[in-house]
Every structure is written in C-alpha cells, then in structure tokens.
C-alpha cells in the first residue's frame, strides 16, 4: 500500500470571480493537493468524490456532532478523510498493493491490505497535528494561501516519505507514551533538577526528559507532550528511538528557508548527529562551523493552549532533554512574526548547567540507566500490546515473535496485528459494551483482547493447539501476573 494522493480542502470556500464556473468553484475549495503536478481535472474529481461521500454519509449520521464520512475502500484505493479543523478536510488516498496475476501482465490482483480504517485515520490526524505543531492551524493561513501551499509543498511529501504502510499498527492509533521505569527517588531527582534548571534559565517554559526514548518526566501539558513525543521519537509501529529524527526518512538538514518566516517546513529537520553521538537535535549546530543565531535551529511550535514556543533538545548518553522555550511568537501562526526570543549565546551555558551542574544529567545518568536497564532487560513472558487511555501509556512486550524459522522483533505478527486492530475497532467503535474477545484463526494461536475502563490489552498466545479453556486460563494468568495491582474489571 502506498500513498497515492493527499487532499486538503475547504468546502466552504467560495470562488472570487463574480460568475464562477463549476471548475472555479471546485478549484476554490482546494487548499492543497499532492501530487501537486496532478492535472486540475484529477484534483477536481478527488474533491468532488470526497465531498460527495461526505454529503452522502452525512444523511446517516446518528447525531449532529458525530463524524460523517471516514473511509471508503475501492478495488484499487482506500480513501480516508477527516475534518481536521472546522470546515477544513484532509483526505488521503492509498493505493492497494498489487500482485501479478498468473495469466499474464494484464491481470493484476489488488490486495485488500490489512490496515484498518482507524489506523489510517490516525495517520491523517497525526499528519495534521504535526503540521499544526510546527506551523500553526491551517485556518490561520486562510488569507495567505500561497504561503500555505509552499509549506504544504515541503511538508506533505516529506511526511509521506516517512509513512511505511506495511508497518502501521494499532499503536500508531493509540498514540501514547512509553514510560521509562525509574524509582520514585530518581523521578523526584529529575523533577528537582528540571525545576532548578527552569528557575536558573527562565527562558525555559517547559521541560521533559526521556531516556532511550522512554518518557520519564514531562512538565508539558499532556496534549502537547503526546504530540511532541510522537514527533520526536515514536514510529508508527510503536517503536521508539532517540535518533528517529536523525535517521532516514527524517534527518533533513535545517535550511535558511526552514527557519521561522522561511517558505519551507521544519518537519523532519534536525541538527544532524553522527551515529549515536550526543549533541543538539534542536539548538546550535553540532558542527563547529557557525555560531550565533544563523546556526541555531530552534523550530517554533504551536501549543494547544494557543501559545507558541521554540524547541530546544539535546541528547546526552541516552537521555533526551526536551525544552520548550518561551517563543516570542505572536498570532495564530507559528510562522508569523517568528523570531528568536532568547540570546543564542545562552544555550551553551544552559547545556553546561543541564549536564554538569550538581544533580544534573551527569549525576542522574547512572541511576536512570541502572534502573531502566534492570527493568527493561527482563523478557516478558507473553506477547502483548497494552494501552491506557487515561494516561496514554503504551506498552508492547519485548518478547520476540516466532514465525516459522523467523524471529521478528515486533511483539505481534502481521496477521495478529490485523486481528488486534479489528478487536480494537470493536471495543472502541462497533460495540463499546464488549469487554473481552478471545479469537483463534486456523493455523495460528489464540488472541485475547480486553477492554476495561480506559485500558485495553491484547495478548497473542503461542501454540495453535491450545484449547479454549486453556487459552482462558492463560489470559487469566496474564492478568494475575500483570494486573494484580491494577483495577481491571
């Protein structure tokens, strides 16, 4: 499956002409279309199709507020659409993968890929949220369509390049944090250190600390932290890495145009680091060639409370310190009137204080590392995925899957992942009253899912010959091991 097109449109937009043609009316609605080289006719057709689907499905809505159209599957395409801002829709068309027919090149079989609509909708949501994070809301550009188009022209292709449709899992939809296991004393030490740092450097508005891409402490509002976490370290398959943005397909160079006020998007751009070395992700360049504001890359971000800030982040021995600086940005759009709100010369001192001051990262590292490693090195006895909607904690087991002779690093096999997606859809959408499902398909083991008061977990049981009763026992055993301290109804 691959992304065929992305459409951003506003059905309420009117053509400027006094007597617009039908084409003018359709064109006026289009904010952006990818690929931009597509013919106007194709663009209009897509808008017309999605708009028509929206109008049609609107008739069957349960209530005024409930979503209308979400997805449609055709032989070749899967189209998902989402109203990401009032009256602004994003739609994405994905082309199913193909397999050649047995009787020649003309007969192509289109695979109906095992990706659920909800996961693709989550992808669309993430695309919009990341854009909003980096540039502000689309609506805020309404009077500067060309400026918006420039940004989309850079942002959308770069974003699409990061999508691996074969590796989209339910964890992408769940969009949560992997929390880092440390003891309470260490947590308090981190909290204390960051409080001191913020008081000594008032330019820091919020700070968060990750270890090995696991969230240990966050001082950011939860919605902003979730989005930042997703952008900075989280992959669509639920894996996380401190070096995500430094690796392909991310790892774009900061350019002058990607600085605030330029025409390019800051998406995927970071100060590049060699291998796993330490240094700034956002901040001054790690290459000692420039200094001052010109080599500084602190992308502005828009926060959910309507304010803006600037991102400063660096890596130190597996720790990622993320700071949102007071932005000095005004207005709705991040790109509008953006400027550095602090003295770039202050950043090295900040880094020095963060790492080497008493109680700083250098002092914290041993205990964080020891406690984290001690817990994380233990192999889970089951393969599972867990999500807690109350605090957005996500966990997937570190037990490797055994598929025939292969060993896969993912906790679930692709077909198991597909089953889990469907179970999740039942819990969240089709039948919210449903609490527990235990399912077995021929040739594979049981998969159990449970949904209880904001928590969901899915367990893949090995062994295709397991009886139903035995599978139930295993599920109970799983619960006993892991939820003795937690209220799982």
């Amino acid at each position, binding site marked *: 499956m691959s992304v065929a097109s992305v459409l951003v449109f506003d059905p309420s937009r009117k053509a400027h002409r006094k007597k617009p043609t039908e084409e003018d009316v359709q064109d006026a609605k289009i904010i952006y279309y990818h690929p931009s080289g597509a013919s106007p006719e194709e663009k209009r057709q897509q808008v017309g199709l999605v708009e028509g689907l929206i109008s049609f499905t609107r008739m069957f809505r349960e209530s005024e507020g409930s979503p209308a159209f979400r997805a449609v599957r055709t032989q070749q395409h899967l189209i998902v659409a989402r109203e990401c801002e009032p009256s602004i829709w994003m739609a994405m068309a994905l082309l199913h993968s193909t397999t050649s027919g047995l009787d020649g090149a003309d007969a192509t079989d289109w695979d109906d890929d095992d990706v659920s609509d909800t996961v693709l909708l989550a992808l669309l949501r993430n695309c919009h949220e990341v854009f909003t994070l980096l540039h502000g809301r689309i609506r805020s550009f309404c009077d500067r369509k060309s400026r918006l188009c420039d940004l989309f022209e850079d942002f959308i292709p770069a974003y699409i390049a990061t999508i691996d449709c074969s590796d989209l899992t339910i964890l992408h939809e769940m969009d949560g944090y992997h929390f880092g296991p440390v003891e309470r004393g260490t947590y308090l030490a981190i909290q204390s250190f960051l409080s001191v740092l913020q008081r000594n450097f008032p330019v820091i508005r919020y700070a968060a600390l990750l270890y090995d891409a696991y969230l240990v402490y966050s001082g950011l509002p939860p919605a902003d932290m979730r989005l930042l976490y997703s952008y900075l370290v989280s992959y669509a398959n639920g894996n996380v890495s401190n070096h995500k943005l430094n690796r392909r397909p991310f790892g774009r160079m900061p350019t002058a145009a990607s600085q605030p006020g330029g025409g390019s998007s800051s998406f995927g751009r970071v100060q590049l680091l060699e291998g796993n070395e330490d240094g700034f992700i956002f901040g001054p360049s790690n290459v000692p060639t420039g200094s001052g504001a010109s080599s500084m890359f602190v992308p502005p971000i828009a926060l959910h409370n309507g304010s803006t800030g600037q991102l400063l982040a660096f890596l130190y021995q597996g720790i990622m310190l993320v700071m949102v600086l007071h932005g000095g940005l005004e207005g709705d759009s991040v790109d509008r009137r953006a400027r550095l709100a602090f003295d770039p010369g202050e950043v090295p001192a900040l880094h020095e204080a963060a790492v080497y001051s008493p109680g700083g990262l250098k002092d914290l590292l041993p205990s964080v590392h020891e406690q984290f490693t001690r817990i994380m090195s233990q192999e889970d006895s089951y393969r599972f995925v867990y999500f807690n909607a109350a605090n957005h904690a996500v966990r997937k087991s570190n037990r490797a899957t055994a598929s025939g002779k292969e060993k896969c690093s993912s906790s679930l096999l692709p077909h198991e992942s597909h089953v889990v997606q469907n179970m999740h859809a039942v819990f969240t959408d089709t039948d919210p009253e449903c609490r527990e499902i235990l399912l077995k398909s021929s040739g594979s083991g049981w998969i159990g899912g449970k949904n209880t*008061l904001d928590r969901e977990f899915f367990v893949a049981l090995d062994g295709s010959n397991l009886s139903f009763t035995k599978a139930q026992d295993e599920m109970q055993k799983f619960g006993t091991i892991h939820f003795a301290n937690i209220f799982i109804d």
Partner: protein
Amino acid sequence: MAAASSSASPLYLSAPLYTWEVSGEDHVSYDEFHQRVLHQQPEGFFAIDIAKEGLARDGLLVKFRPVRAIRFSPDGSYFAYLADTKPPTMGAVNVLHPETIDVPVPLRTAGGDWTILAFFWLPAVYVEFADLVVVSTMGIDVYRFTYDTLTVKHLRRFPATASICWYESSSGFVVLATGPRTLQPYLLYCKTPTKLPKFELNLQRHGSLEAQDVAIMTLYEWTFCIHMDTMAGRVALRSLSGPHPADIVLDVQGPGPLRLSRVDNLLVVHRLDKCISLIFDIKQGKTLTPICRPAPLAVRHEGSGPDDYAGGGLLSLGSGMRGVGVVGEVEGHGEDDAVSVTDSHSSVELYSPQWRFVSADMIVDEGAGVVYRLELNMDAVADELMQISKVEVVRVLLRRINCRPRVVSTLRKALDQQAPLEDLALLFSVLNQVYRAAIERVPHKVAAATTRRATVSLDMLLQFVGQQTILTEKDVVLEVMYPYLLAIAKAPPNAPILELAYQRRFGPPTQPAAPAAAREGDGGGGDGEGEKGMDELKSDGVPYLMSVALEYMRSLLNLQILPHRILQAFVFEVGVFFEQDSLLQQLLQYHVLLDSIDLAQRLFGLWKRTGYAWARQACLDMSLRLREWSLIADVLIDLKEYLDVVPMLRRHGVSTYPIKEFLHKVADDVEAQQADPFVLPHVLESVRAWRRDSQENPSKVPPPNLRECGLWLPDIRFGDEDSAAPGHSSIAGYHGRDRPRLSPAGISGTTSTSNPHPHHPHGQPDSSKWSSPGLSSRSAADSPPLTHLDHHAEGGLGEERKAEGGDESKLGG
C-alpha cells in the same frame, strides 16, 4: 514574639536567681547536680532549688556547722561534706537528721602532707547506694555509700601526685595536673573506672598552669578537657571520650584573662579584660569562628518574661559598663519563712573580678551577692546568622532546644523570599537529618510496641525528643507551606485547599480577599508577595510552592523517611490548586504519592468534580491495593456500571460490603431502569447466584452481606437478611469511610488507614510486576528497603503513617 534587633546581644544574664547580703561569714556555692544554690551561714545552710519556681524554689535550711564544701547525694537525701580540719574530715549526713546521722568517710591517707582537692558524687546507677569520688593531692579514691546500712566503703584508688584537679560530675571525668604541663584524665562514671592516656599542654615559655586555666565540659555528646591559654590568646579543646572529634583550637582575639561557660551546648568564652563574650559551636565545622559577633553580655531588665529578651527586654552594655537589671532580694531567711524575690533595681558590674563561674552556665557575683544564669538570645543569634546563610541558621537552631518556632520562621522567610531551590534542598537536608536522627533514637522496642511494624508514631517521637528542636512534616506543612499558600492565594486563614482549588477552577472568582489583618496574621503580607503570588498562580511550569513541597518530600525520601500523609495530602491538594494535573498523574504513577485511603478519597472527589478519567483510574487502582472495596463499588455505581459491582465483590470475596446500599442505588436509578429494564433483575440474579454458590461451597465462596436485602430478595427473608456476614456483626466495615472532606492539607476528616491487607505492608501485593496505574513498568525493582517509619498525627490528621517494605519501580501505565 517580637523580632530581635540586630544589635541585641546574643547572651544575657538572667534575672537574679538568688541574692544575699554580702558579709564575711557567708559562703555561697552551687550544686550543679541538683541545681541548688548552697548558702552557708553560721547556723546552717540554705539549699535553694533554682530550677523551680515560686514556693518550690524556697528550698530548705539544714542546720549544720560551716564546712568547706557540701555536695548532695544523687537521691538528695544525704549530703557529703568536707571540713577543713587537720587532717581533713569528710562525712555523709542525712539531710533531715543532720545532727544524728553523720557517717564518716574513711579517708585513706598514707600520712604526710596532703590535701583534698575536690569531691563529688557520681550519677546514680542503683538506688541502693551512691559513689563518692574524693580527689586529693595523692590521687583519686572512690567510696561507696550504702543508704540502708549507712556505711561508706572504699572501692577503688588511683594513686597519683596531683597539684590541681578538674572534674565534671555528670560525665564522671576527672583530670589531674600531675606535672607542670602534664594532665592525667580519668573516667570514673562507667562500669570499670579507667585511667586514660595522659597528655601534655602546649604552654608558653615561663607559663604555669593555674586552676582557672582548665575546665572539663561536655558539649553535645563529647566531653572535652579545655585549656585556656591566656598568654597565647587561644582555647584548645581535647576530646576525653576518644580520638573523635579531633583537637579543636579556638582563636579568642589575643592574650588576656578568659573564662568559660556552656549554654545549650554552645561554648562561651568570656574575655574578662575586653568585657565581651564569644560564642562557638563546635559542630560548626573545621574552621571554628564565633557564630556571631563578639558582644558584651546583656542584663535582663524589669518586666521581661522568660522568652522576652528582645524589644527592650534587655539592656545591652558596652565594655566595662555597669548596667541596670532586676535584682531580687531574699527576704525572711528564717527556717519557716518563704524565700521570696522582689524586684528592685540595682547596678550590675559585668565581668567583675568578683564573678565566680561556678558551673557551666551559672555565675555567682560574690561582690554583689547575686547568682545569675547565663542565657542565650537565640533570636539575636539567628538574626546574625541569617545575614550569612539560612542553612547555617537552621543548622545552629536545630542543635538548640526549643527552637522550633525560630526554624519555622526561618523557613517561612526563605519561602517568602523565594529562595533558590538548591538552597532549600540544602536546608531540608539539614532539617531532615536531624529529624531522622531523632527518629532513630527512639528505641526500637518502644517504637514497635504501638504497631506491628518497625514504626514510630509522631506523638511518641515528640515525647521522646522532648525539648530538642526538630521539625516534622506536620510542622513544615501546617506552619510553613500552608500559610504561604494562603498568602499567595489571598485566602483567609484555615481555608481548605481543595475548596480554593475548585473555586479557582470552576467557581466564580475565588474567595474575596481576606482582610489585611487576617493576611498579616498568617504571615502573608509584605515585600511584594502579592505580586509574587500572582506570578506563581499564572506560572507555566511547576509552581514554586509545588517544587518546594516536592523538594522537601525528596529530602525525606533520600533519608529513607516515608513522608507523612499530611505532606502527601498537601502535595496532592496543591497540585490540584495549581492545576498541575499532569504532574499529579506522574507522582501517582511513580508512587511518589503513596497509597492511602485519604488519597484515594481525594482522587474520588477530584474525579467527581472534574470528570478526569485518570483520577478515577488512580482511585480505583489505589482502592484495589488498599482493599477498599466500598470505594470501588462507589465508583462503579457512579459510572452506572451496575452489572460489574456484584461480580467484583464476589471475585474478591468481599463479605463486608452491604449489598443493600448497592441495591438501593440501583433501584433509585429510574433512568437506568428505563434504559434497561433488566438491569435490576440481572443484578438480583447475580446476588442470588453468589449466595447460592456460597451456600454450596462456603469455603471457596465467602457469602455476600445481605443484611436488610429482603426488600429485593424476598426469598432470603428470615435467612441471610438478618444475619451478618461472617466476621462482621454489622456493616461496620463499610461505614467507617466518608466522602473526602475538603480540608486544609488534609487536616481533618480522615479515618484510619491501617493496612487492611495482612500480607502486604502497604496494601500492595508484592508480587505485582506492574504497578498502578499502568503497565509500562515491567517488574518491581529490588531497591534498598526504606526505614520503616510510621508516624501518628494528631488531631485527626490521619492516625497512622504507613511503612513500606521497599521502594518499587513503578511506571507507567
């Protein structure tokens, strides 16, 4: 208490404790052991209990012939005397029958020229006898006086040729000058009296040792032999107890006559020539300097109370000046007359050559006929130290007795000035080290007597420490942080934090600003605090007060003290007040906030007020660990998850929860029954099934509590309906819990949180790998165990503080 001016003298002379008409026939001495002034007159001697007040101080008149010295036995019923006869004689005399019971002490001498240098009683070990030490120029003899048999028996002799001796009766140390510069110490108050290694003094050339050049003094837990080198202008301390601490040398501002005193473990060096006193604290560190500027003594002035040594209560005098103080006159010295003290003014010649420093803090002015005690003006000391460092102030105050209010005041000042968190961290560390040491001093047997765990109740701790200055979490929360919060919130005194928090979040503009007087009362006003408070209320990051509270909590945990629930409740409520929901979530997640019913109830209240799913989840998880089934049931009922309640109770074998409460609520919910007419029948069927299964297999399925459920379950009438569940005579297991009451820092309205789960010290199953409220942690880490410190709070603060077997790694989820 009025603030002391910075110019106030740190030391002062008390009001006269005893006065007499000076004449050649009177001899006044002081018995430190019993705190009695002994006034010998031709017809006998008065023993005045200066530690007592009013009539109790009057003491008694003992008709006895004049002797050189008198020392009361440890039990006070006898006194030993030394008569200047030739050879000297000693005896032990009954206080009530001095003429008839006079037991001579069989002094052991080898003839020749010898004199008795000193004698004293050792502190009592047994009530049947007392040991008397006699030091002569020929050595030390220890005698045992048996009260019942009225015998004095020689016990031990340490032969030595001595010219001068010094001793401290309370510690049992004696030091003899056995050479021009050689001192020989002995420890007599121990199982086996011991001769300690001798040492040489470093005297100036041509210098000679005088009696007033050396003293023995116990400072804190160490006893020192202190040499005042008047020629070199220094004071040297050598520990008699062992190599620790190492020798200490104090610079006392040049040569000159010196005298020593000790006030509340502070060493006071009096420069008689300069008429100033220098105060040293030997725990200050390696480089010892006076803890405040050298200053002359002040004299307590008329009308000043026991603690009123500021605001004009004292007159500070300059060098060589005479001051005006209160002098009492002793009237009616007759046998039956009470000794009363009346106020009158008289001049006091400070540092008079007629002063005798008769004990650690007592001064007898033989010229004026007055006995004074040397006292400390801690406000003046604290004010001076405050200019250097708040940490140093707290450090010094914590070593003193009865300084809790001053430490509180110092902390308040630090908060008001928004002291840097690093400084506060240091300050809390100092504070809590003393706290921890105090907890450890409570004997384990005593501590364990009240609870099953190795814990210490707050009441017991406070009883045990007595006058020692410590600050508990209760003091810090109620007297430092809570008033600060009220000040920045401009709230009236005693305003409940959660109410303020909810008003701030949802209600109309919070409470009207408190009257100025009220704000002043809680120490809030002044210094632009209002603006600071506003800044803090609008702050993006973690508010200052929250950071301070967490820093304090961290300091306690670093010392392996589990924070008292009042602090945990305060942190929670302050978090709610400042809308730090994310931080609160994390604090619960990482178990910084420990499980307690108080907290579970607060979470329930927060959920009800805000609808936060995380609060509900944390409440449920915590309730599960605490086995607080009724709270879980309440949450489920509130969620209208009626069908889950009975299975949950049954699964956990809960026989205490009154099913009738639940059935009432379901029956009252007309809306739910309209939506699903089968909901009540379904619930009833599940109850019946539970009852049926229990009857069939009572050992595996504990019965439900069906008391008064006959209304809905007619088939059980006259059966289970009127009988209580096993082990419960009524629904007592349920009604002990109330809804959370909104109170300042959890000050009221909590119930016992004793662990309802017998196997898990903190209500947390220890086998769990993923701790509440989630799942991102993998297993409980084996971290070093915390000291089990359990505290009881007073006045409804929650009765008990939990101990926990170990710090777990918790995460996520």
